[in-house]
């Protein structure tokens, strides 16, 4: 009797797990379909970082290894930082703006009225953002190769850094969308926070101020830049110290997101 009951529970649990898996696959599939169907979002997400690297290549392609770029060539410096920038755009930027807009349009409320669990919805979004980030990085590496930047060697370290970075910046994006209540303000607020952070983190230009570097080292962008630059250009493995700082920010984002996220356009 007890054995039978246990067996039934076990069957029920495995069926639920299979259903949950099917649900996530279903959600990821439709999230992809919505994204690729929208020509603007698909093109702009990929064109901007590629264009940026191409311009940097045209400007600095001939600048060899220099102390200004920390002993790297200009393009060796920019491929990982622009790669990081594209991940920021497709995770943090995209989620902050898209979720605020979806909430305001009532789409989130509609989703909330269905049995789809919140975790499955967010897993669908995360999988989507990771996929877009992977495509972005691949495009940037390919453009870098055209300017003579060698392919990176530590792919596992890059994969770990990429997934952790994408997850952290997704969490921060959802956190910003949770704090902003007005969809029109979302792009401005998201950029306002991001732009100075990118600057002091050396995304656009190397920073040679010890103070700025120490400050930005505790903020989320520089650790991600550094963690990508290692396996991309310096032939080092995963940089666990930088990844820990990044994960901590992801954790903060997740806590804010879980506490403050609203599905409803009206505040309670």
């Amino acid at each position, binding site marked *: 009797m007890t054995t039978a009951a246990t067996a039934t529970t076990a069957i029920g649990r495995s069926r639920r797990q299979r259903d949950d898996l099917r649900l996530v696959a279903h959600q990821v599939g439709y999230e992809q379909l919505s994204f690729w169907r929208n020509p603007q979002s698909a093109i702009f997400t990929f064109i901007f970082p590629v264009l940026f690297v191409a311009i940097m290549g045209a400007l600095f392609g001939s600048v060899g290894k220099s102390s200004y770029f920390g002993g790297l060539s200009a393009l060796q410096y920019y491929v990982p930082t622009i790669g990081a920038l594209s991940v920021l755009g497709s995770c943090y930027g995209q989620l902050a703006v898209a979720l605020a807009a979806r909430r305001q349009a*009532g789409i989130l409320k509609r989703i909330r009225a269905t049995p789809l669990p919140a975790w499955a919805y967010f897993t669908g979004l995360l999988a989507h953002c990771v996929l877009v980030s992977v495509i972005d990085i691949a495009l940037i590496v390919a453009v870098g190769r055209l300017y003579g930047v060698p392919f990176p060697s530590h792919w596992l370290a890059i994969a770990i850094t990429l997934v952790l970075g994408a997850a952290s910046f997704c969490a921060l994006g959802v956190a910003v969308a949770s704090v902003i209540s*007005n969809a029109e303000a979302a792009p401005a607020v998201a950029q306002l926070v991001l732009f100075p952070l990118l600057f002091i983190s050396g995304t656009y230009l190397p920073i040679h101020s010890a103070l700025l570097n120490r400050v930005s080292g505790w903020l989320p962008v520089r650790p991600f830049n550094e963690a990508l630059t290692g396996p991309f250009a310096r032939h080092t493995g995963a940089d666990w110290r930088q990844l820990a700082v990044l994960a901590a920010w992801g954790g903060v984002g997740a806590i804010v997101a879980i506490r403050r996220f609203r599905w409803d356009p009206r505040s309670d």
Partner: protein
Amino acid sequence: MPNALEVAGLRKSYGSVQAVRDIGFTVRSGEIVALLGPNGAGKTTTLEILEGFRTRDAGVARVLGLDPADRSSARELRERTGLVLQDIAVEPYLTVRETIARSAGYYRAPRRVADVIDLVGLAGLERRKVRTLSGGQKRRLDLALGLIGDPELLYLDEPTTGFDPAARRDAWALVRELRAAGTTILLTTHDMEEAQALADRVVVVAAGAVVAEGRPDELGGRNAELVRIAFMLPRGYAPSDLPLTAEFADGRFVVQTNSPTQALHELTAWAMQRGTVLAGLTVDRPSLEDVYLRLTTDRALPSAPERSIR
């Protein structure tokens, strides 16, 4: 038959504004109930509490036997309820079929996608992108998303606002079809004709409280009220010439009576004997709208606007 909805003593404030003061009603399984009331009366807040979007400050709410504020049963409740909201909220780049199939995947035992497309009258438009649909077609798609989970209880929030008369009739036929199949429906509307046509019972709320409840044709003692006979006075006669006391209102003379057959006979006989006619003659009882307006005016609302998106 068990009750699909049980609400008692419901209360909800936003800051210092009391949106819902005291709302209570029940909806039996298989019944269509219309929640009527002016904007800001607390209808939307009440619906959102029942749908689990908002917490209540006080009172009882049971939806299909479950507490909508209980997070552990929220998923179960959403399996069994459907929702059609006022705003059109659909992703523009998916097709009609894809939009419905996506929602179908969220439910344990959904209706068939093709059946729902037929049911809401979108057959032939399956491959159209949502952004190319007309406003009325998008509302039908919304309705399809509310029905795809095969709900026991359906919330319809002003379902026919913006429909042309033919589309409205179709929507009404669909609602009756759903009722015949056993679906319980809680409806909000500003259209009294719609409430009259669809609802088994209406619940009128004003300023956050229920002010009347009953069958549409009995609401507020409507069936017991005096009948109004209205007509124009023939040229050359004074009101005092009439066989019955009449009051002048809105350009016509009105006789109020509880024996309309007798009164009508006296009035028409009077006119016939004098070789004249009673132009513009009508006989009616107060409409649902008259009763509704009487119940809901004089209750000024200090309440929050229905939808303020901040």
